């Protein structure tokens, strides 16, 4: 399969001079379309920094991130925002839903940000997503009226809405109980299988990582392990 993501010798240094802290050092790897991979590491290992750089939320001090064939390090703020909207979907530990909007409005927000009114096809897709997430009938509810698990599922639906090539999930089940955690990973697997969406999941939990097909381990800002997990799924 073609490379969807190429991370090439990226470094991230915070601060300058004697106060400089190296968060990532010479990290390189590629992710092919349709992969279901995880990035593991201890707290402070640099895994979230890596995810932020891949998610175009931050820029590397050196090195290059290429996404869908586009060199993202050459892009300005507007270009990165466009690519985040078109090619990426984010699921964070906290749902980050907009409390002023309904479930439907939160779900379709990426479409509206792309300066589009929600087309018939997108409406159908949103309804399918709601069905897939088990959220039928909740469209008109305010985001604040949902349970924690429901909110996280709406956030997953929002990440799926623009049919992104890559979904980046940062500790997506960190705030959920065991039942909801299993449900979310089953959902990720279903989406990966049915829609071919690539997943890159950041977690500190090796049990969670064991459920993915590929495990990349970051330690002290370096990629120390990149293994296939034949026991997953």
């Amino acid at each position, binding site marked *: 399969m073609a490379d969807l993501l190429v991370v090439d010798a990226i470094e991230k240094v915070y601060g300058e001079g004697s106060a400089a802290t190296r968060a990532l050092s010479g990290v390189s790897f590629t992710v092919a379309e349709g992969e279901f991979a995880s990035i593991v590491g201890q707290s402070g290992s640099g895994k979230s920094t890596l995810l932020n750089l891949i998610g175009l939320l931050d820029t590397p001090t050196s090195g290059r991130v290429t996404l869908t064939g586009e060199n993202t390090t050459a892009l300005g703020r507007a270009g990165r925002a466009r690519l985040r909207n078109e090619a990426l979907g984010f699921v*964070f530990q906290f749902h980050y839903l*907009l409390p*002023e909007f309904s479930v439907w409005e939160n779900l379709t927000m*990426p479409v509206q*940000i792309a300066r589009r009114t929600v087309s018939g096809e997108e409406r159908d897709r949103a309804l399918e997503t709601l069905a897939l997430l088990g959220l039928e009938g909740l469209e008109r509810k305010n985001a604040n009226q949902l349970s924690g698990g429901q909110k996280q599922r709406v956030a997953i639906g929002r990440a799926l809405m623009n049919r992104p090539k890559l979904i980046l999930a940062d500790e997506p089940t960190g705030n959920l109980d065991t039942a909801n955690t299993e449900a979310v990973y089953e959902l990720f697997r279903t989406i990966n299988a049915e829609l071919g969406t690539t997943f890159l999941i950041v977690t500190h939990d090796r049990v969670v990582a064991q459920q993915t097909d590929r495990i990349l381990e970051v330690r002290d800002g370096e990629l120390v392990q990149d293994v296939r997990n034949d026991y997953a799924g």
Partner: protein
Amino acid sequence: MLSLKIAARFLKSSPGQSALIIAGIAVGIATQIFVGSLITSLQADLIDAAVGSSPHITLLPGDGASTVPGTAATTASKSELLVATAIPVRTLSAIYTSGEDSVPLSIAGGDATDLGLIYNLEDRMVSGTYRLGAGEALVGTVFAAKYDVGPGDPLELLLPDGTMAEFTVSGVFDLGQATANERVAFVDAASAADALGLADDEYTAIQIQLTDVFASTEVADRLGSDNDVTATDWQEENAELLSGLAAQSGSSIMIQVFVLVAVALGIASTLAISAVQKTRQIGILKAIGMGDGAAGRIFLWQAALLGAGGTLGGIALGYALIWGFSFAPVPFSIRPEPTFIAISAGIGITVALLSSIIPARSTSRLDPIEVIQNG
């Protein structure tokens, strides 16, 4: 228009905060409309009382001449678009004697219709008839009361040449000024010509009213240089009144400016608080692809909505205050000027938009990573 939708939703999510700032803007705009309209109406009334029923420009005989031709009135009307009325008059001084009292009178002789155009006499009659037939005179209310003269009574005047002339009072007027009501009288044109020994086309002055009273100085300058006459205008003779009006306008503008500054600070601080309150939402919107410009426009729209709501409320409140003022025991009413109110509305919305610049800029600069990292 997503920015507008989000702005409206942000405002709706904090109804108390939004209502307070809209009320703040409304009070500011209402104050501006009320104070501005009050001062404008007060000044218009003062100017009307001072010169509304008197000449704005008087053309007097030029150097070496003792009369002006009646045609000078027609010439002035034709040459100046701002001239509303120009009439030829014959002015003279006379003395009225009653027992041991004697009082000088300033007499204006002219056609009754013509004089009515300048002095608005028809509406200002309090007794008798507005008429200036041969040998008839109109006197003011103070004169009539002081010397017990009324319609139908004889009026004997000592003329400048030492002769006596007898008139019959046909009516009593009120020009709104005590001095004028005591010292001014009107007689017919022929009697004034006889008293002054003038021919039919000889007059002592041309009295002019303009459509714009404040154009009197420039029009007087032109008329004085173009014709063989000397022109005087009301502004020369009312310098103190004008300086009083200018000071009043200045203080009115100061009050309005400070009110607007207070409104601007109120909106800016509310939007700054809102920008902080909504940092998380803005951050996540940016994380999922909203551009810096669109994020900044959310606060521009919030300001526009607050400004529009506050301005509409302010106009309504301003009209209510003006209506309430109509019941106050004062001798004039406030007349709201639509143009001034439209300008106030424009200023209100502009001030609101300007107030949003700082929060809009800080929002557009916000990095989504700040929100994501800080949770």
